[in-house]
């Protein structure tokens, strides 16, 4: 157990350089670029004295290097700063929106895998058949569908024309969120609260956004699964298992797929970034109150601290996911030692 903890700690430490690079990049460019937050805040017609004063207050008149070092020092203390617009602390602001994004991304991933892996297995088992080509066609086409367009079309068809799903939002008007809100992850919250009606409403609202996200990214997993399954099915242990009279189903799913999952799980880490990116567009389309929309709002206002904070959180999420993937890898494959 201790070895695992040490491994985790070591990995988390490794994420620091990555975050460092990203934050520095954003920090510098934010400040070099034209357009400054103070004018946005006070309006274009504000008097120069006020502008200067506000600038001084926010520390924006110091040289960039100094601002940079200040920020780094701040980060080291775990302080993400205060929003320039609203004076709120950045941390809580982001934390409020984080669960929505996490929930959406998680369910999107679930849909993605639920579609991608079985289709990939089927295509591999019946390679060069009509089904195989059809599935590969699906994978290629779906990859090229813009996430937001998919969302819009689903809204058009299923919300507008068929009226089966809600068009936007996380919850309906009849559900009072504050009744069950604990973690911000509504599916868990409603379950914990025992409120099945609210759970139904939450899932109903999750449906279209999760499907949007999941389907567009499933193409990659179909191809990945298919390729790895083809390799796995050629393996000697597959033939040896069949020779011992093991049923085909067990051979394919118990042996081949399990082995094929290893490289798939590895890819999961990278694909999670694509999921996060897609989530932003999905949030915009479905008016989902997550970090993506927060980022977009604050970008218009040039709210530096929030923008930087959001980027840091995204980087952290990517790192944690990558870490989880590696741990999963070690669990599945006995050859891997942490």
């Amino acid at each position, binding site marked *: 157990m201790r070895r695992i903890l040490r491994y985790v700690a070591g990995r988390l430490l490794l994420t620091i350089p990555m975050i460092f690079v990203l934050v520095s990049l954003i920090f510098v460019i934010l400040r070099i670029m034209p357009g400054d937050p103070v004018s946005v805040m006070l309006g274009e017609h504000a008097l120069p004295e006020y502008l200067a004063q506000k600038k001084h207050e926010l520390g924006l008149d110091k040289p960039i290097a100094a601002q940079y070092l200040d920020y780094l020092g701040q980060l080291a203390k775990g302080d993400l700063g205060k929003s320039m617009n609203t004076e709120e602390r950045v941390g809580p602001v982001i934390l409020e929106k984080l669960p929505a994004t996490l929930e959406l991304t998680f369910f999107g991933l679930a849909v993605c895998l639920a579609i991608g892996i079985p289709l990939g297995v089927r295509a591999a088992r019946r390679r060069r058949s009509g089904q195989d080509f059809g599935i590969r066609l699906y994978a290629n086409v779906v990859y090229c569908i813009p996430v937001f367009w998919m969302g819009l079309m689903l809204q058009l068809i299923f919300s507008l024309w068929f009226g089966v799903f809600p068009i936007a939002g996380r919850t309906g008007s009849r559900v009072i969120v504050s009744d069950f809100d604990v973690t911000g992850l509504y599916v868990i919250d409603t379950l914990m609260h025992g409120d099945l009606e609210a759970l139904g409403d939450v899932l109903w609202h999750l449906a279209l956004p999760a499907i949007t996200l999941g389907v567009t990214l499933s193409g990659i997993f179909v191809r990945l699964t298919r390729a790895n399954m083809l390799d796995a099915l050629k393996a*000697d242990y597959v033939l040896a*298992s069949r020779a011992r*009279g093991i049923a085909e189903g067990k051979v394919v799913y118990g042996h081949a797929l399990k082995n094929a999952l290893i490289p798939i799980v590895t890819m999961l880490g990278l694909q999670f970034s694509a999921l996060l990116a897609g989530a932003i567009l999905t949030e915009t389309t479905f008016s989902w109150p997550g970090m993506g929309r927060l980022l977009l709002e604050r970008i218009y206002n040039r709210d530096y601290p929030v923008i930087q904070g959001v980027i840091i959180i995204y980087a952290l999420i990517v790192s944690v996911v990558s870490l989880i993937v590696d741990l999963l890898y070690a669990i599945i494959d006995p050859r891997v030692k942490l």
Partner: protein
Amino acid sequence: MPETAAASILEIDELSIAYPISIGTVRAVDRLSLSVRKGEVLGIVGESGCGKSTLGLSILKLLKAPGRITSGEIRFKGRDGIERDILAMGERELLSLRGRDIAMIFQSPLTSLDPLMSVRKHFIETMRAHESGISEKEAVARAGDILVDLGIDRSRLDEFPYQLSGGMRQRIMIGLGLILNPEILLADEPTTALDVIVEAGFTELLLKLKRQYDLTVLLISHNLGLVAEIADRIAVMYGGRLVELAPVGDIFDSPLHPYTRGLMDCVPNILLDQKELLAMPGSPPDLVDQGPGCPFAPRCPKAMEVCSSKDPALLERPGSGGLARSVACWLYEGEA
């Protein structure tokens, strides 16, 4: 072993296997007929590409597309005395046959075990596939017993393939093959991937197990030396066909088919003062759309005109010890 006492346990009858590829059809096995006697060790030898491995796979109907069995029957007569054509069996029957009546072990122990499963899981899975009600305790006990028989410590059950040596993995494969007490053990190039020292132990082990489990063994190999050590009879394949079948002594002392003779000549003899290594001229036959005639004709030092135009039939000849032998060669046509 007197011929009358041994009954036939497996009969391959006019088996033909083809692979359609983009430039034609490869006839991997061509009208092969062979009778395997109960309790014998039959060696099937030939060079790479002669079709012996394809033959082996087809016995358990493990051939995968695009390979197709185009004709023939493989009749198996087990302990129950009923003779069934394996090639006509349905899925359920096949699953029962594989592993329980006929077991097959393969060339590459390195990759023939699922790297994600422990040894004990392999055994439990195999046993549960055939005796679904078996308890884990009993399964593990039996697995442990057979490991001991094979000279492996029981504690190894909890290890994973990557922790075992090649020789050990091969023995585990054998264990998995024998755990259900099959009647026939089919070994396809079992020692090719192992070093010679391990190989030496293998033949000893195989003979011991054969006695212990009352097995009939089909040993497929391109290694004549290995086969010579334990086989009772040897079947020589070339170009997808059976060219000679004889008791092991006859094959080495008086090979009839020119190809077999060539094989014997090729093996360097440490006792002789050889200046040169002999080899057979020419290269293996192109199996795509073979024309009529003997496949060895282009390379045969004794080739006659008829050899390139008509297929030789399999002729019976008297062998040593009153046993029968057969050879497919025009040289012996017409001899009584």
